[in-house]
């Protein structure tokens, strides 16, 4: 026998091996083929506030809009019969929208320095305090309106130039008196998400309980029912989301611990006095002074009841110094709305009973302002309101057979344990945590991607669908210089 004979005998084996090479790629895709279940995604409408609009870094701008959770959901719905999803996107050249915060760098001590982005805005007029934005006419699937409260949904003129500029932007001039509720009712969705109500607690909380107000439970419950009734009028299916406990967000969890750590490093005893006001901060209002100690401010280990807001950051270095900086800033901001009886700063200070020669935050004469402090009583009010609102949201969802994304439970877990996405750790920490943007309240694109995935899980569970999730790591956290 010769070699060619051998190769004739070997040839079938080689062919067999060759077949194996081409045929052995496992096919897993068939195990995970998407399906819409019992839901119809052909006209998806997103109802909500800034979180739904894609607001991030203290502003609404194109990148945030493009990575809003409704945009990501609509992108995933395309796998299962989803239709076109129109967002009121800012155009190229005006891509910075309302303007936003960027991270400019860090101080020598490692504290972040933020700066405002003020170029390529979509501002068409109005005032600096209340600008008007370039209009977006035509039908819109993402009805997220930054700043809207559930208590606002029946307010006529909310879409006029006197109303909310983000709702005004998408309200046709001919329908300036159309309420948000009417706009929602006219959207005729086949599928919807509804995440309204955050601002009914958030505005009060972020002002340290020193401004704004909490919506009453009765008003919240009634208007939530009207919105959900409007969305389901044509038999649409959907998911509603609960309101997270805002005291878990970096806006409230960042500054107190770093303030405590800074003072401890400077050997300031935790028994040193800390004096702050409670209640509404305005001339003529009884701003009660509470004398406490530094130990009352929540530190990194979670001890202490007082939460300091992110906006307190510029004033903390003045603790213990004779400084009127906060009051001058406050006066400058309040000036347009002050009565004629308060013509200048010294009258203003006298009306507020402030003596700027006293040690700021240490003396009852120069207290830390309530706007920068959320105390235990205010936290209780916020938490009770949140719980009552969430009861109303869940009850209405149950009545209509809707899915519920329990964002409150979800974010409480994230605040405690963080969340790992495909091997990457994310936490509720400011800047370093990847989830929250520079304003300390609104998510980053990563945070929004995770929210989209949580919505998808609820949709899949509720409607027997198989909508694929996104890879959250493809979306960024905070952008660094």
């Amino acid at each position, binding site marked *: 026998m010769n070699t060619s004979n*051998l190769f004739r005998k070997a040839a079938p084996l*080689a062919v067999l091996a060759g077949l194996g090479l081409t045929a052995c790629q496992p096919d*897993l895709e068939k195990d995970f083929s998407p399906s819409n279940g019992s839901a119809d995604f052909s006209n998806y409408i997103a109802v909500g506030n800034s979180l739904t609009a894609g607001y991030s870094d203290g502003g609404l701008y194109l990148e945030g809009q493009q990575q809003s959770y409704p945009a990501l959901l609509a992108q995933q719905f395309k796998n299962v019969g989803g239709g076109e999803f129109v967002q009121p996107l800012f155009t190229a050249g005006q891509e910075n929208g309302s303007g936003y915060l960027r991270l400019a760098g860090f101080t020598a001590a490692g504290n972040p320095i933020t700066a405002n982005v003020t170029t390529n805005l979509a501002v068409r007029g109005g005032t600096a305090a209340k600008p008007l934005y370039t209009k977006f006419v035509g039908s819109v699937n993402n009805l997220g309106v930054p700043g809207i409260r559930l208590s606002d949904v029946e307010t006529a003129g909310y879409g006029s130039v006197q109303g909310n500029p983000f709702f005004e932007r998408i309200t046709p001039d001919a329908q300036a008196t159309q309420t948000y509720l009417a706009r929602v009712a006219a959207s005729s969705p086949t599928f919807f998400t509804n995440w309204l109500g955050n601002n009914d607690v958030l505005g009060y909380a972020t002002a340290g309980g020193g401004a704004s107000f909490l919506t009453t439970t009765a008003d919240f419950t009634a208007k939530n029912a009207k919105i959900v009734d409007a969305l389901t009028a044509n038999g649409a299916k959907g998911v509603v989301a609960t309101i997270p406990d805002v005291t878990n967000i970096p806006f409230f969890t960042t500054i107190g611990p770093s303030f405590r750590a800074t003072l401890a490093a400077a050997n300031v005893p935790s028994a040193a006095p800390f004096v702050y006001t409670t209640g509404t901060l305005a001339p003529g209002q009884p701003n009660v002074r509470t004398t406490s100690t530094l130990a009352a401010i929540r530190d990194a280990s979670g001890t202490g009841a007082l939460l300091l807001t992110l906006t307190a950051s510029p004033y903390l270095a003045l603790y213990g110094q004779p400084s009127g900086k906060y009051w001058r800033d406050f006066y400058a901001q309040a000036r347009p709305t002050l009565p004629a009886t308060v013509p200048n700063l010294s009258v203003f200070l006298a009306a507020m009973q402030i003596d700027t020669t006293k040690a700021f935050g240490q003396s009852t004469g120069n207290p830390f302002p309530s706007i920068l402090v959320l105390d235990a009583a205010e936290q209780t009010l916020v938490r009770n309101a949140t719980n009552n609102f969430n009861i109303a949201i869940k009850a209405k969802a149950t009545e209509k057979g809707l899915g519920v994304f329990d964002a409150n439970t979800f974010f409480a877990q994230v605040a405690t344990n963080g969340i790992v996405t495909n091997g990457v750790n994310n936490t509720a920490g400011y800047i370093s945590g990847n989830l929250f943007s520079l304003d300390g309240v609104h998510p980053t694109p990563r945070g929004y991607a995770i929210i989209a995935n949580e919505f998808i899980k609820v949709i899949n569970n509720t409607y027997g669908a198989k909508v694929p999730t996104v*890879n959250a*790591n493809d979306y960024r956290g905070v952008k660094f*210089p």
Partner: protein
Amino acid sequence: MKFKSLLLAGSALLTGTAASAGGYQVTLAGQKNNGMGGVGVGLSLDQAAMFYNPGALAMVKERGVHIGANGTFARNSFVAAGGNQQRELRNTVTTPIGLFAAFGPSEGKFRAGIGVYTPFGSKLQYADGWEGRTSLTDIDLKSVFVQPTLSYAITDQLSVGAGLVILAHGSVNLQRDIPLPDSFGHVELDGKAETKLGFNAGVFFKPSDKLSIGINYRSKIDAEVKDGDVTFSGINSPVFQPRFQATKFAATLPLIATTSIGFGVMPTENLTIGFDASLANWSAYKTLRFDFDQQVNGSTFSESRREYQDALTFRLGGQYKLTSGLTVRAGGVYDESPVKDGFVTPETPDNDRLSGTLGASYSFGKFGVDISGQYIGIKKRTQTQDDLINNGTTDRIAGTYKTNVVVAGLGLNYSF
């Protein structure tokens, strides 16, 4: 002299694959064995007995050289938990080899030999931008063992043998992406293992022409990298750069011990059937730890749970001599995975394996040619994020893996 030149010729080709036994073990030493499901502990087929059971070497009548090379072609698919996009490896081909030469007096009771083989290895290159990129993008793990061996036939029925196992070459190249808040950096760990010693010993008993029994033990060797190179790339922000300054790393990977028993049955002169059972002591692999010379993102080490468990392998195979020149072979393997549920990592996307093998030899007097082919199906394996959270193993990715491997082998024999 001859050995050395053969070794050098071979070493350029040496590399292993995780695709041919549980974990990162590779059992592709002899081409005849490959065709028979990898049995060999209870047989005395050829010089590759040095690997399977040095005790059987003295019973191999022919003195000679066996050299074999394999091409392994792995096809891996992965779908991340919740997703629907199938990810496939960028590159899937490796070429493990084996070389065995045995000498001794033609009628004597001694055999001496030397073996070179690649018992552990892994090479996987995942798709660009895949979901598990921060666990692993690329791994290339190589080991070459050199084993001088002595075997002695105490009686016509009983022989013993042992080899000094030298980890002559070991290398690891491991790459992953680093998650930064707004981008991904990349790190490459590349190192060579210290030379280490172990042993491979066995007993072979052949009470009759129709039956043989073998027992084999291969000891553990810790592959230890003391001075590996760390290279960061793609970390552009001056904020992050100072956090990634390490240049050196150290790590230890256990190349685990294996205990095997094998039986050979020869019902007729032309038919040989082998059965092996092996226990691999994978429980030695608890964690994978890297120590760095400087901080890497705030820590001077990284540690990742492995918690492998001991695993059994069962092999059954046979050969039939069709003509004086031609022998054909077939076999099958069931291989338990050492990787527990919720501990699967991208380096070894492992599960229980079921393999079928075919092989043939043709001999031309002193020369012989062996070919072998194997199809290895690694069972589909899913781990959820909850599994990972419960096990403290969230440094890897949840999802579903499935791997199939084809191995084609070619061997050449020359008998003195």
